[in-house]
């Protein structure tokens, strides 16, 4: 079983991101359960969403406390929320940021990090700082867990409130190309 925790701010689409990824993983034959964390649904407030997938049926419907992977949709969130809480050793961190590993403190338990200037791409392509489809593509690039094609199918099946599907797919395509993936030494590995 592989466990992913999304962090974002209300309005960036972390919950929708977990739903889109669930669709993409099901398309690739996986068993998936995803749930949002339950808090106050306000724009800008920190939110989280959880997704676990496996090759066999999953029964537990609970939050995730020890994620294998953390996807953070907001560049300022790590300063206010301990996004690494409970993360497993050897985990993967996918972060919306313009910065490099030298500028950000990468915890020792992270063995691979994928950084993407999600806000930059979002403002250029979507005209709004909505980063969910972008960070899903960054996740796909960093982890290789899901293909961009399956993600696009997932995106196509949800209704977007703030932007059209084509724009989201273009933003995802760019994010897939521009995400920088680093190893434990902070060396870019692609």
């Amino acid at each position, binding site marked *: 079983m592989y466990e992913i925790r999304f962090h974002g701010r209300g309005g960036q689409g972390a919950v929708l991101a977990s739903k889109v990824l*669930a669709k993409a993983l099901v398309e690739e034959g996986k068993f*998936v359960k*995803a749930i*949002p964390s339950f808090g106050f649904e306000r724009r800008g407030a920190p939110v989280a969403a959880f997704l676990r997938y496996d090759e066999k049926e999953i*029964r*537990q419907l*609970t*939050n995730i406390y020890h994620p294998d992977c953390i996807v953070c949709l907001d560049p300022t969130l790590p300063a206010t929320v301990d996004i690494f809480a409970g993360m497993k050793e050897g985990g993967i961190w996918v972060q919306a940021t313009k910065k490099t590993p030298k500028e950000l403190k990468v915890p020792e338990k992270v063995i691979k990090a994928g950084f993407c200037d999600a806000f930059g791409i979002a403002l250029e392509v979507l005209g709004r700082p909505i980063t969910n489809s972008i960070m899903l593509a960054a996740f796909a690039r960093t982890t290789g867990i899901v293909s961009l094609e399956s993600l696009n199918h997932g995106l196509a099946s949800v209704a977007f409130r703030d932007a059209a599907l084509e724009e989201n797919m273009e933003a995802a395509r760019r994010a897939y190309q521009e995400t920088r993936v680093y190893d434990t030494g902070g060396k870019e590995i692609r």
Partner: protein
Amino acid sequence: MSKTIVCDGNEAAAWGVARSRPDMVAVYPITPQSSLAEYISQFVADGIIQADLMDVEGEHSVLSVLQGACLAGARTFTASCGQGLAFMFEPYFRTPPLRLPIVMSLVTRDGITPQCVWGGQQDAMTVKEVGWIQMYCENVQEVMDTIIMAYKIAENRDVMLPVNVCHDGNYLSYGVEKAEIPDQEDVDAFLGEKNTNWHVALDPERPMGVDPLTGGAGGAGPSMFVRYRKGLCKGMQNALGVISEVHGEWALKFGRSYAPLVEEYRLDDAEYAIVTIGSMSGAGKDAVDAAREAGEKVGLIKIKTFRPFPLRALLDAVSKVKALGVVDRSVSFGWNKGPVYQEVLSALYRLERRIPALSFIGGLAGADITIEHFGRVIEMTGKALKGNVPDETVWLNEND
């Protein structure tokens, strides 16, 4: 053709409604049911549900409208929870004795106060004595399938009672999984012809007194009243058999089977068991598997149908074990225990030997009941088997 989608429990419920072809729906939004109301409205707008959607000003009107529709022969649906259910209570109480086969999703929510919009089964447990059938679902697919089965149960001539299909707020309202939408023709064949008002109707061709004033003591009133009461009791008891039959038919036709009343999990050689209800059960089963690997002879008993109470099925299950730990997601303030626990105790009285039972309460106000929490339940219930039986209720999330 059936169709596979990935959706949350509220969308699954809406698809179950769509396949059941209601004639009239009325819903007033309330968290965590709101997106279910939105899906229903969208489906009506898109023509997926070809029903009249009544926009009304609150839950009291929602159910009053549907009562009229049902008396006029319509198949009806609504959904509510928490404070919305509280506001609906007056017509809610009238529905079972009128024998109206209305189906309503209860997207269970904890009760205020303090303010809380999150999951918990306090609302459903508070109305357990009103005469609605209550079935609790474990996963997204079961929500969809149970809604469809609920119509067949409610409209059975030996039942004619309203059904609450309960799915846990937060965990199953927003929880996302793969689900299969059954083929429309198959569901049509499964449900058959509907007749919701052969027994009581608003119909100018068949004028009758509906909901009569019975009159006080000294006349025929009280005995008529008792006939209504006993009829409702009989319908509830008939429902036990009908619920089992309908689940059996569902499994044959659609290939997905669910324990209709009480599920027994790894119980046959168990020395003790935990009792669960609703969406917590998956984590409970995982915890049982882990304890089994550590050598514990523990099983799990899941209650799906809580009203009518599945006495026989539960007795069959509990007679196999020597101690029980019952996990509730709500509180009985009269007992300071869980309501499911109290009901299980009533069943245990029918056993020839006395077995210890512990009350655990967790998952209030959207809190998690994790595999680790169930580990604690299993450990304490195992100790009860050896004579350590605390009388105090154990509050699972208190120290989280």
